[in-house]
Structure formats: structure tokens, C-alpha cells
């Protein structure tokens, strides 16, 4: 019983002392400060004190006079986040305040992928993140305007509000090969990216050929995808020539839409076929050499 009484007495004395100290020196901070802006903290009491400011990437120690304002310069409040102000004169008194990001200054715009086959649904996506001039992510909602265009022809337009500092879109790729211009705009800030739209798989692979002195010269018709785009140069077309139980193959790259190969075979009936990736072409039968 006596011990419990002692504990209560000590606690009461401590609380009373704290209350006295608080009345003696008080530190009042603003509710919110915009990054880069000056701010002032008011104090009460009298005498000299030491002021500490601890924040994201910031640590400051200065002398202060109780009862006067403590002025904080904008360069010390560039980083958004929670700051701790500490005023010490015999005892210490502390307060926290938040620095919020300034108005959007630049947009970081990520677009994926950098290359996409034409006519693919949900193939192109973009994410925009507004930042202020001090590289703080702007969390306040803002409207970002996304635009997709091919050769000044608009394919897609959408305005998206940022949520927690992020706005995004997802859409299908266009139907023609070429550079897809993707832009994100926020007020006067605009950022552009390019996505290369490439031809899809060959749609029809047709071949023709004839026997010559050095073998059979075989070539494809211009190779298009199902949207009429010429298939990219360098795409490999595998020509196979079968004659009896012998087979010959040549992997030939497409140049300007056409793949060509010279196949040396015996002068008998030869069956020639072509394939590109998993797409097969027609079969061609070339008769025996006269």
C-alpha cells in the first residue's frame, strides 16, 4: 500500500513539472508547409535556447531566443515529408509538421513496351508520375491527359486523375507499323515517348521459284502481316527443298519484304516449302531438269 502511494506521488510530481515546463517554453509549428517555401515557428518564454530541425535529408542546429519566431528558409524545406522541430532550454520541447510537395514541375512518364506488334489488345501501357521542382512526388490529385498518335493521326486520348501520385492507361496497339507517339500532359508540362509498332507474324507466305544453272532460285512474294504491313527486314524465312529422301534447307532473311534463296538440288522433282517462325507457306513442286 505504501509502495503504491510512492509511485503515484512520483507520477504526479513528474506531470506537474512537465506542465510547468510546457508553460515556460512553448513551440508552435505550422500545420503544413509547401516544399521550398519559407516558414516560421513561434516560441514562448524567455531566455536562450537551442533549436533543432530533423527532416528527410535535413538536420539543422541553431541558437534561438525564446519568445521570438524561428524562421526556416525554403532551401531547408525542399524535401516533402515529416519534420521534427526541437527546442531545448534546460528541458526540451518538440513538435512535428509536414512539408508537402509543391506544384507539379515535371512528369516522369514510363511507357511499355518499347516495341509492339500491331493490333494487339492491351499491349501498350503508360504510367505518369508528377514531381515538383524539388523531385517530390506530387500526391495531390491532378489530371493528366494521355494521347497516342501515329503520324499526327490520333489513336487514343484519355484524361486520368492521379491517385496517390500515379496516373496510368492501357490500350491496344494500332494497325499500321511505324512510330507510335505517346504523350502525357499536365497543364503546361508535356512529355513524349515513342513506341515502335512493328508488323505482326506473316499472314500468308507464298513462294515461287524456278530451276536455274546453279540450282533452284526460290523467293517469297512480298511478305505481309494480316493488317497489310510489310514484315520487318531481317525476319528469317526457312526454305526447305525435298527431293526423294534428301532435304536441303536455307534460312534466308527478308530484305525489302522478300526473302530469296538459292538451293542446290539434284535435277529431279523437288518439293519446296517455306516457314517463318511457326507460320507455314505454300508448297511448290518444281519438275525434273530437262
Amino acid at each position, binding site marked *: 500500500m505504501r509502495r503504491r502511494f510512492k509511485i503515484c506521488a512520483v507520477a504526479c510530481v513528474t506531470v506537474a513539472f512537465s506542465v510547468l515546463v510546457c508553460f515556460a517554453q512553448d513551440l508552435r509549428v505550422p500545420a503544413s508547409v509547401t516544399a521550398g517555401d519559407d516558414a516560421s515557428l513561434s516560441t514562448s518564454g524567455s531566455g536562450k535556447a537551442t533549436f533543432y530541425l530533423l527532416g528527410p535529408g535535413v538536420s539543422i542546429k541553431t541558437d534561438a531566443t525564446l519568445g521570438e519566431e524561428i524562421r526556416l528558409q525554403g532551401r531547408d524545406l525542399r524535401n516533402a515529408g515529416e519534420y521534427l522541430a526541437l527546442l531545448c532550454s534546460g528541458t526540451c520541447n518538440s513538435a512535428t509538421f509536414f512539408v508537402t510537395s509543391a506544384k507539379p514541375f515535371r512528369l516522369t512518364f514510363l511507357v511499355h513496351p518499347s516495341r509492339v506488334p500491331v493490333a494487339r489488345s492491351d499491349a501498350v501501357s503508360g504510367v505518369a508520375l508528377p514531381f515538383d521542382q524539388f523531385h517530390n512526388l506530387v500526391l495531390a490529385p491532378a489530371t493528366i491527359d494521355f494521347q497516342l498518335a501515329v503520324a499526327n493521326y490520333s489513336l487514343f486520348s484519355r484524361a486520368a486523375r492521379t491517385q496517390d501520385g500515379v496516373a496510368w492507361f492501357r490500350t491496344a496497339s494500332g494497325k499500321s507499323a511505324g512510330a507510335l507517339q505517346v504523350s502525357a500532359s499536365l497543364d503546361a508540362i508535356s512529355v513524349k515517348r515513342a513506341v515502335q509498332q512493328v508488323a505482326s507474324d506473316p499472314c500468308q507466305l507464298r513462294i515461287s521459284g524456278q530451276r536455274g544453272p546453279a540450282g533452284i532460285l526460290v523467293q517469297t512474294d512480298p511478305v505481309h502481316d494480316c493488317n497489310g504491313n510489310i514484315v520487318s527486314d531481317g525476319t528469317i524465312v526457312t526454305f526447305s527443298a525435298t527431293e526423294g529422301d534428301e532435304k536441303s534447307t536455307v534460312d534466308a*532473311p527478308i530484305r525489302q519484304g522478300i526473302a530469296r534463296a538459292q538451293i542446290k538440288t539434284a535435277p529431279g522433282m523437288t518439293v519446296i516449302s517455306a516457314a517463318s517462325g511457326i507460320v507455314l507457306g505454300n508448297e511448290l513442286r518444281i519438275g525434273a531438269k530437262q
Partner: protein
Amino acid sequence: MKFALPTILVVVTVLLMALALMGAGASRGTVGIAVGSAFYGLTPKGDTPQQALTNLLVDVQRRNWDRAFESVSKTSGIDEQSFIQDWIGSNGSLRSFSSLEAFDPRPLHATNDDAEMRIRLHWTTPVGPIEDVRDIRLIREGDVWKAVWPRVQVPNVHAQVIPVNYLRWDLVTGGAADQWGSGNVDAPHVRIISMNAVDSAEGAIVMGEVVNEDTIPAFVNVNAVLVDRAGSAIDDESSFDKIDHILLPKQVTPYRIDFPGFNLKNVKNVRMDVKATLVPASADPVIGVMKQKIDSDVQGKSVLHGDLLNQSGQTVNISHVIVSFYDNNAKVVWVADGYVDRALLPQSTESFAVEIPKFVASRVQNFHVVVDQYTLGRS
């Protein structure tokens, strides 16, 4: 009496040295380097076909070309320079970087004046050990046997101008000043289009094919992880050189991953992972694969053979042939590879052969050959 022991020791030592010098060449049935004499002039006389061929091969191993060529019959019609080139290669071919580690001669048939020997040549090469089998005819000339060395067919490349209009992909990387996310280039899209796991005498094998679905070249590597019944990984291997690493757009390559000493009955799952990175590449040289045919070789083994035709204007130093074999359901049942030890000169052909194991040979209905190549000065 006090000189007896030293005298005995000296005599025994001399006797042992004499035995060592004379006896090594007389040993029979030894493979490769252990055969032959320690000193010139003490080489056993080539009075049998086997001894004559052994003498020749020992001299080849020692690169003693004059003495080796003395064991070749004048009726061969081959000059010494061509004979040497047959052994040491030329034009930066795989043979140029190889050395004859061992050999194993076996008689096929023999009469009083004529014999045929089969030699297994074991080469050490930068791409691993390679075995070559050759049948050599020997004839008696006086009291010694000499090899009738087949004339080496060197492709005759005519002087010509070959216009080079191949496609090439260069890779430009962005500078440090690039804004984050402004200039990234995605890795190529590649896909495993087939996978099959089988047990073999050496262990488990995972094989199949990969296609580059993109419009840019890709450096491809396939990894596989064997997972046991408890869900833990028991081994992790990659396709290493059993794949054509650089795939041009829409190109298909076989791959094979060996797990030596593992059995599939202990494996519940195989985790596959294909990695592709963007690399500079060239569509040149185009190498055609002509006259592909499955036959039996002289040893009765099933072999896919054919000719590689270099359709470009530059020498291909080392050609690597990789083949996927399919059954009648177009399923990959085996992947095999082989190196061509001669350089592939412009517009010329070189033959190749890839062995098909007995346990799978009867199921093979079709095949697909790809050729990987290495050219000096280009990586």
C-alpha cells in the same frame, strides 16, 4: 667384393634403360600417345599394317611431318603440304586449334599386300573432345607397309566479287544523362515452343525448340531446374553450347540440357526459363544445309549427314550444326550437334555428320538443322 653392389646396380639400370627404349614401340593395343619410341631411330619398323599406321600417327602427334609423310605411299598422289594441312587445318578452322590426343587403330581386313585399318582419332579442341573415325588403306612396299592417304579435296574458290548487302543490327545504349524511363529498349521476346524430357544412359535430358518472336536479334539461353516430389530443386543446368545462341527474328533453334547422373523417376517437375538479351548481330553469312539425309555410317550407326554451303563472301572458321529430330507427331525426340573441323570457304561446301543414338533412331521421322557459326574477328 665391395664393388659388387654398385656394379649390379649399374648393370640393372642400363638394362632397364635399354628395355624402356626398345620396348615401348613394341607394346600393342595401347591407345595413342603411349605408343612409339622415345628416340628417333629406335622406332619399330613398320613391317605390319598396324605398326606402320601407329608409326605414322605417332609422328603426326609429334608434328614430325617429314617422318610421318615417309609412312605415306607415293601412290597416294598427295603432296606433303596437303598432307600436313589435312592434319593441322587451315583458315582458322577448328582443326587449327585442335591437337591429336590419342588414337585407336583396329584392323578391318588384311591380305599379304593390302590391308584396311580403322582409326579412331581423339582430338582435343576448344569446344571439347571430338572423336573422328577414318578408314585407311595400307599397301606393302618391299618389306614395309605404307598408308595410301586419301587426297584432300580443298575447295577451289575462284576470284570473284560478292556484293555484301546483308542486314545488320547495331545496338546503341543511352547515355547517363537520359531521363529515367525515356529511352529503354525492351529485351527480345522469345518463347519455348516445345519441350520434352527423356532418360538416357548418361542421365536425364531436357530438349525442345525456342523461337525468337521479335523483330530484333536475341541472345538466348535456356535454363532448366529439376524439382523433386518434395518441391525442392535438385539440379539446375543450362543449354550451354547445345543451342544456337544468337537468334534472328522468327528463327527457331533446338536446345538440349543434360543432367548427368539424374533419373526422371525422381523428378516431379521441370522448371524452364528462357533468357533473352538484345545483342548486335548480322544476317550474314547465310549458310545453306544441302543434301540432308539419314543413313548408316561405316560402323552401322544412324547418322544424319549433309553439306553446308556458305552462300556469303567471307570464310566461316568454325561451323556448329545443331539438329532437332522429330517423331511422327512432330514431337522433338532428340537434339544432337556436331562441329565441322574444316573452315567453310566462300561459296563452297563442307560435309557434316551428326550421330543419332540407337534408342531413338527408329522413331525419327523428320529433322530440322540449324547452323551456328564463328568467324574470326567477329564475335
